[in-house]
């Protein structure tokens, strides 16, 4: 797939997938700052769903 096609299609999904994974693993590793990392990381899919899902509804 050419990059001009790939990034518009997969850029956001890839970013959200990676941030989710960082979040899921973060809180497992430690507490405190790691928890914040987890909340922000895993907040991305929830936030994106709300932002794009509710827009204009």
């Amino acid at each position, binding site marked *: 797939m050419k990059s001009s*096609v790939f990034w*518009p*299609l*997969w*850029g*956001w*999904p890839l970013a*959200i*997938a*990676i941030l*989710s*994974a960082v979040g*899921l693993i*973060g*809180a*497992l*590793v*430690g*507490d405190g700052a*790691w*928890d914040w990392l*987890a*909340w922000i990381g*895993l*907040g*991305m*899919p*929830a936030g*994106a*769903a709300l*932002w*794009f*899902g509710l*827009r*204009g*509804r």
Partner: protein
Amino acid sequence: MTPRTLRAWSWLHKWSSLVSTVFLLVLCLTGLPLIFHHQIGQWLGTEVVSPKMRADAPRATLDQVMAVAHDRFPSKVGMYVSQEPDDDTVWFVTMGDSPTAATDLKQVAVDARTGQPLAEPKLDSGLMVVIHTIHVELFAGQAGKLFLGGMGVLMLAAIVSGVVLYAPFMRKLRFGEERRDRSTRVKWLDLHNLLGIVTLTWAIVVGATGIINTWADLVITHWRNDQMAQMLAAYRGLPPVTQLGSLETAVASARAREPAMKIGFIAFPGTAFSSQHHYGVFMRGREALTERLVKPVLVDAITGQVTASRAPPWYVDALLLSQPLHFGDYGGVPMQWLWAALDVLTIIVLGSGLYLWLGKRGPSRKGLASDLRSAAR
């Protein structure tokens, strides 16, 4: 992608979803209250709360704790003694008619400082127990667990095929775009694609760790027959212990062996987590990561001396580390709410998928193929 491979992926997405959707909906709906089981327990008044005391208040011995429990249920024998990871002020004593009993178990919660009984948590009735049993095994025992594990595998197949199909559907659209000028069906399709792709990582992780958890009993059994049996080889053939030695002495020996760890649970001789001749003292670490792992210390039930202690094999560690990733109980209350939000989003993905399938059975007979043609326009 050739039309032929596209049809194959569509077929996989349709059937893996269709077969599993109803069960996945049950899992999502029963899982939602389970995320908050501690809070619900507090709200229902079933959560055991110990009175506030100074952290260095003197502690009752475990022999006193057991005496209190035996006093309450004189005909039953001790099976397990445990503590919640975040609260060392309460001992939960589980008792049964025999060390291997599976039904009619009783539990007594005893204050670890005063040795006073606090409560008798119900192990086999109550709304949360019913919800938990549905979620874990559909009231069908080990077969139910393995069946739900199979539904989990189908879910993963549906997710992977869904990601493959995301590309042809979304090629002409911006991320998260909803085609408002089109039919209700197209709007639901756009929402299905959006929510499906953003919940991707979470759904894979929760699905995969759920599948792993359905094998938990089998993994533990294998460990017991393999490594635990080796640790106990010297005791093979000895007659079972009739008069148990002091539990307090046994646990003190285990603590002395692993001073940096805390008690997770203690298994009485004859249970699934010990031997006929040993107390199995299962120690936990104190850090976020090591708190999830256990290390068994086997203590001779008569002398109170440590017989053996060995870290479990990798597959037991993997099982234990997979559990928080399924339960979402490892990053505080915000993590519980995120788990709940993603669970609800997954319900919408499942519901919209079902709607899209049902919709195409009407007179217009639209399906995945026709959706694809319209997406490509």
